[in-house]
């Protein structure tokens, strides 16, 4: 085992074996670019980088392509804790439609590599997962974002599924569900091999919800890109709009008033509660705990109604924009800051009422409902080793004993105590329990933010929205936010007054794979409940 690098003050890095390169030194040895944190690597250096990852704690946050190069976005260690984000980007100019992939060493890279292959026709060598992710042959072209997309007939054969498991083939059955199940989840198709009362194989066919986010967020105005970033998926629209906005602000060197940060964080916590309630309600519903599900759905609806009454929106889409926040307390025009703060404080207070009343009742009811507590124990277990290998965060990572939380180091959360709940079982029951505890923590934070939104503080109050104008010269920025399901990261490239490109890292892609690994072994009657406990949104997987 290697000894983790020791960090000193300003970021100088000293390892136990100075002769061995680290990911950081390898990337920094590359050719400098106009962006301080991005370096261009030669093919050899890229190979060394991949090899170096075998025993380096660096985390791959994202991997993207722009047709000319592939870009790998790394962080020194797991983001979270005191240090926060210390990212570096390595770019490899492509010489042909191939590059050395990361997924054999960092399985986290798999959904990114699959997406790059489907969108750009650029293949990762040594890839751990070569299945398509979103291109199932139904598009008008293959490799739609490449320079020369190849037209297709728009017709395909049946999708390719792996050969059935021998036990399933001999004495079991294959079940299909989706993409139109009549429920409210996004479109995805599952194929389950069931034998001896157990689900033995699970294959997910994704791509039904692919809308081409990457293509749509290229070459557009700031307003268009910001609106689109909120529509990646509803479960994390504040988180995405925040990450996008913060990335734009970072690229342009704009600093945002601390109060705006707090407002964004507060909205993000409301969204976290909403998203957790959705997945808890769906889990309860699928498990057959009808009364519990009804209570959870109603609680979610009340939360939405409170938001509508206070800020004019049930769901918090388009509240966070580059340059600040757009909040229209009961209406659609920007109001004076004091009125907004007043409204936000009332909102926080009303949510706190939910936390001290209804929420506790629902939590007690959940604990007393066998089908969702003991019934989900030992189901859909995510092993700690897998969680560590994939650097899982969010409720799923936390239920496997991983407590990394980016909020600890985020400026916007300064002044609020953060306690990240952690469990070790890694099963569906633990995931649900963590969601409840996460909600309790968010409720506490919202109350703390409410106390900060005090209008009698007469200090200079900066405007909540400073309109930004993209400069002509090229600039790049990044930002990451702790979303409801883990780390959400955006890298933006701005040029000539437009958003040239946006790279999105969504935890859903990785979680979809985790779900496929963890679901086999569950009993068919519990399959849906266990699946809902993961809360993976296909809109976010497919992009």
């Amino acid at each position: 085992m290697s000894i983790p690098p020791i960090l000193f003050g300003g970021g100088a890095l000293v390892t136990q074996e100075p002769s061995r390169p680290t990911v950081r030194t390898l990337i920094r040895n590359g050719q400098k670019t106009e962006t301080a944190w991005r370096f261009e690597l030669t093919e050899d250096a890229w190979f060394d980088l991949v090899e170096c990852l075998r025993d380096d704690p660096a985390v791959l946050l994202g991997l993207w392509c722009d047709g000319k190069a592939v870009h790998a976005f790394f962080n020194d260690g797991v983001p979270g804790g005191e240090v926060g984000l210390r990212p570096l980007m390595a770019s490899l100019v492509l010489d042909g439609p191939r590059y050395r992939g990361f997924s054999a060493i960092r399985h986290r890279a798999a959904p990114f590599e699959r997406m790059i292959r489907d969108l750009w026709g650029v293949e990762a060598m040594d890839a751990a997962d070569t299945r398509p992710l979103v291109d199932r042959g139904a598009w008008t072209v293959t490799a739609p974002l490449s320079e020369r997309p190849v037209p297709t007939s728009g017709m395909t054969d049946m999708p390719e599924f792996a050969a059935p498991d021998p036990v399933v083939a001999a004495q079991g059955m294959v079940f299909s569900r989706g993409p139109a199940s009549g429920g409210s989840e996004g479109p995805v198709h599952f194929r389950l091999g069931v034998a001896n009362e157990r689900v033995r194989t699970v294959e997910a066919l994704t791509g039904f919800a692919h809308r081409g986010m990457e293509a749509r967020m290229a070459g557009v105005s700031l307003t268009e890109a910001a609106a689109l970033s909120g529509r990646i998926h509803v479960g994390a629209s504040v988180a995405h709009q925040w990450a996008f906005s913060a990335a734009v602000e970072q690229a342009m060197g704009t600093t945002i008033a601390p109060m705006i940060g707090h407002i964004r964080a507060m909205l993000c916590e409301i969204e976290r509660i909403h998203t957790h309630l959705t997945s808890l309600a769906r889990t309860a519903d699928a498990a057959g705990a009808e009364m519990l599900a009804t209570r959870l759905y109603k609680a979610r609806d009340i939360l939405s109604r409170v938001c509508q009454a206070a800020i004019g929106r049930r769901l918090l889409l388009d509240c966070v924009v580059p340059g600040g926040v757009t909040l229209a307390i009961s209406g659609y025009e920007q109001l004076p800051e004091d009125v907004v703060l007043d409204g936000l404080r009332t909102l926080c207070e009303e949510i706190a009422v939910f936390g001290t009343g209804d929420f506790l009742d629902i939590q007690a009811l959940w604990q007393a409902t066998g089908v969702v507590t003991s019934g989900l124990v030992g189901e859909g277990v995510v092993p700690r080793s897998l969680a560590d290998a994939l650097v899982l965060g969010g409720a799923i990572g936390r239920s496997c004993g991983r407590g990394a939380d980016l909020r600890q180091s985020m400026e916007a959360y300064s002044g609020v105590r953060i306690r990240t709940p952690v469990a070790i079982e890694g099963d569906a029951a633990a995931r649900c329990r963590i969601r409840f505890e996460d909600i309790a923590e968010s409720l506490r934070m919202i109350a703390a933010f409410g106390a900060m939104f005090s209008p009698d503080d007469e200090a200079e109050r900066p405007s909540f929205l400073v309109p930004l104008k993209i400069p002509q010269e090229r600039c790049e920025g990044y930002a990451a936010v702790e979303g409801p399901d883990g780390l959400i990261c955006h890298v933006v490239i701005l040029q000539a007054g437009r958003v040239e490109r946006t790279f999105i890292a969504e935890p859903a892609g990785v979680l979809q794979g985790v779900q496929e690994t963890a679901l086999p072994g569950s009993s068919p009657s519990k399959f849906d409940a266990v699946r809902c406990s993961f809360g993976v949104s296909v809109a976010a997987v497919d992009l």
Partner: protein
Amino acid sequence: MSTVLIRALFTSLLAPAGPALPPVVSRSPLVFFHVDSGGCEACSLEVEALRKGDYGLAEAGIVFTDAPRLADMLLVTGTCTRMMAPVVKAAWEAMPQPKGLLAVGACAIDGGPFAENYAVLGGLEKRASVDCAIPGCPPTPDAILQGIVNLLSPTPAPIMEA
């Protein structure tokens, strides 16, 4: 989801829209089948809120099913992706006559933020005769309910904006 739908998905891609729809007669209860054909899931979430919350849906004579062959109305949210188009079509064809089509949200109507591209066909407006279109990105559950009620009442009142 039957294998019939899946097969339809991979063989009848981009099939033309069906003929104009016969008018929906008022029956009780009115059965809906909901398909999300690919959006940000916000519209689906609001349909779910309407189904599961205190909106008096059952009193209004509206129920949801998970089998299209039992449905009177097809409720679509999200833009129609090229992969979902045959699924929507197959669901529609599985429904008995008379039947109606409901487009909920900007995506389902005209594609909204997700207009036609390599992977997306866009909204239903141009491809089928939509009996009821509820605008908004996303519309509120109240607006969706209002739209449905207007559809059922003999003299429709204007649809509330979200």
